[in-house]
């Protein structure tokens, strides 16, 4: 029998989520699969390409309901990306779906050349990204994907924080005429957004206002920043929380506004601290002459601590408690 997965949230964090009125949604992975199937039913040109990953991509129903719109390539990620590119070059709206760890490392050259450099409107979906596979170890983590894709021209990189952002990202990708990469995990996510919120690629969403500390977070770490802001409010600190779902293009305006208006900036990402969101934000601030107390919270450049995703998050301070502490120290 396997041990129960540790919770991502302490009782105090759960209480804060409740206090903030947050409701638990489903996994972004499930939202993705449902959205893609819905879009594909309406558009027979949408093709999902899987590398023995239809189960892990929650695409088994897609494959059953739309068998002609799913291409299985077997465990062959380089081939997956090349085929996805070739389909896109011949008028298909192809979605290559594979675990983020393999998709963006093993087949990076295919992403760079066949999709980005050749400029075909293909979409790549990194499933179970970041540390979603937790205890399976470093082979299964993708903590490099944002860095490597930031360093490749001609690809939009989206890291949705919740079901709404995931759905919007997939709808955007389905219409995009340029390469798009979307990555997310497989744990259930709190719904973060009010229904009236608009989603636009390249435009961050501010979830909470405040000028003491700005949390600029991306993907599935945003919830922890939001909870930390709630906790810090109880201690008299007003914190801004920004969901930077588009890592590329980056919303530099929102970053600069935060740098101007807030006393400190904390970035949060489920990614190695090298080359990810934090360094991107630092570059934006510094190149515009802004030097504020600044911390990048992510996975440090070390062999990642063994454990489940929740253990890893807690270990590296990606939690309500950890982020509250980082922000408080930064203001001292």
């Amino acid at each position, binding site marked *: 029998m396997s041990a129960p997965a540790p919770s991502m949230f302490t009782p105090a964090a759960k209480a804060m989520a409740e206090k903030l009125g947050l409701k638990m949604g489903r996994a972004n992975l499930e939202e993705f699969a449902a959205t893609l199937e819905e879009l594909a039913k309406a558009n027979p040109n949408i*093709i999902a390409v899987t590398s023995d990953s239809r189960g892990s991509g929650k695409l088994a129903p897609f494959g059953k309901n739309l068998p*002609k719109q799913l*291409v299985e*390539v*077997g465990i*062959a990620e*380089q*081939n997956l*990306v*090349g*085929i*996805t*590119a*070739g*389909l*896109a*070059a*011949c*008028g*298909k709206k*192809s979605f290559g779906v594979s675990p983020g760890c393999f998709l963006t490392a093993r087949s990076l*050259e*295919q992403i760079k*050349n*066949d999709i980005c*450099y*050749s*400029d*075909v409107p293909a979409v790549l979906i990194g499933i179970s990204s970041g540390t979603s596979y937790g205890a399976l170890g470093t082979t299964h983590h993708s903590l490099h994907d944002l860095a490597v894709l930031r360093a490749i021209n001609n690809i939009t990189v989206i890291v949705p924080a919740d079901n709404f952002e995931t759905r919007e990202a997939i709808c955007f990708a389905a219409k995009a005429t340029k390469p798009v990469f979307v990555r997310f995990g497989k744990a259930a996510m709190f719904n973060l957004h009010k229904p009236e919120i608009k989603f636009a690629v390249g435009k961050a969403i501010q979830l909470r206002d405040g000028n003491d500390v700005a949390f600029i977070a991306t993907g599935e770490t945003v919830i922890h920043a939001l909870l930390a802001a709630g906790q810090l409010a109880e201690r008299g600190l007003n914190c801004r929380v920004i969901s930077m779902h588009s890592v590329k293009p980056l919303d530099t305006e929102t970053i600069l506004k935060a740098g101007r208006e807030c006393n400190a900036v904390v970035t949060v990402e489920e990614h190695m601290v090298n080359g990810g969101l934090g360094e991107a934000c630092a570059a934006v601030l510094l190149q515009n002459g802004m030097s504020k107390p600044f911390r990048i919270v992510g996975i440090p450049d070390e062999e990642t601590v063994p454990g489940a995703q929740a253990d890893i998050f807690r270990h590296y301070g990606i939690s309500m408690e950890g982020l509250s502490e980082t922000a408080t120290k930064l203001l001292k």
Partner: protein
Amino acid sequence: MRRKFDMGKIVLSDRDLALKSVHLRKKTLEAIYDAGAGHTGGGLSCLDILNVLYNRILNVSPETFGSATRDRYVQSKGHSVEALYAVLADRGFFPEADLKTICHYQSHMVGHPTRHISGIEMNTGALGHGLPICIGMALAGKMDSASYRVFTLLGDGELAEGSNWEAALAAAHYKLDNLTAIIDHNTLQISGHTRDVMSNEPLDEKWRAFGWAVKVVNGHDYAALTEALSQPAEIGKPTCIIANTTKGKGVSFMENVAKWHHGVPSDAELKQALSELDAAAAKLKEAA
């Protein structure tokens, strides 16, 4: 699915093609000389294949290049770009004068194919990429019940890239008889003989074992190439054409010499090469 090759389409005779190949070899060498860089040996080895493809086989022209039903050609061995550009210029995809700009500052004619150039389907140059891309193209064709065919050209040294074999499995799995892979089997690569660098023989048995229909032809024989390329070798299987070629073909001192893989001719070498090619053209004309 099977599209019979229409012999009526042959406008150029074998001799016409032979003369054209001489002209294209000269253009290829001049382009490499002007660029001060290039892939000489492999360009000359695959030139007759390209000549046959673009002048007898491919249902594509400068006018139809934007058409969804055109045949697709992806040059997986992207380094032999000068030969490809010489053929495309000759077919009217862009002015021949553009060949003078290969590898020049701000010229899109970089040292490997890019889609900025009319006639180029995909950006290639890193090896082992063309075949997977072509599978995607061939699958799209099957999905759309389109009549177009998809062709790629692989180097024999390139076959050491594992992605080719991932793709070889998939092409047979999906019974892509609209896909043809041509191997420029010149038996050499940059460091020497392929058999010494990383042996890959017997190629025909390998591709057959992967589920492909295989044909072995002389890659400098226009009639044999035409026959092999005209239609899928077998319904329900992708076609692999192993074209036995000579690296550096057509220039005596370049033939079968590994250093000419990316050797750039000096003034004297270019002069000699061009005069050998002129002599070959004169001989062809004389024989007529």
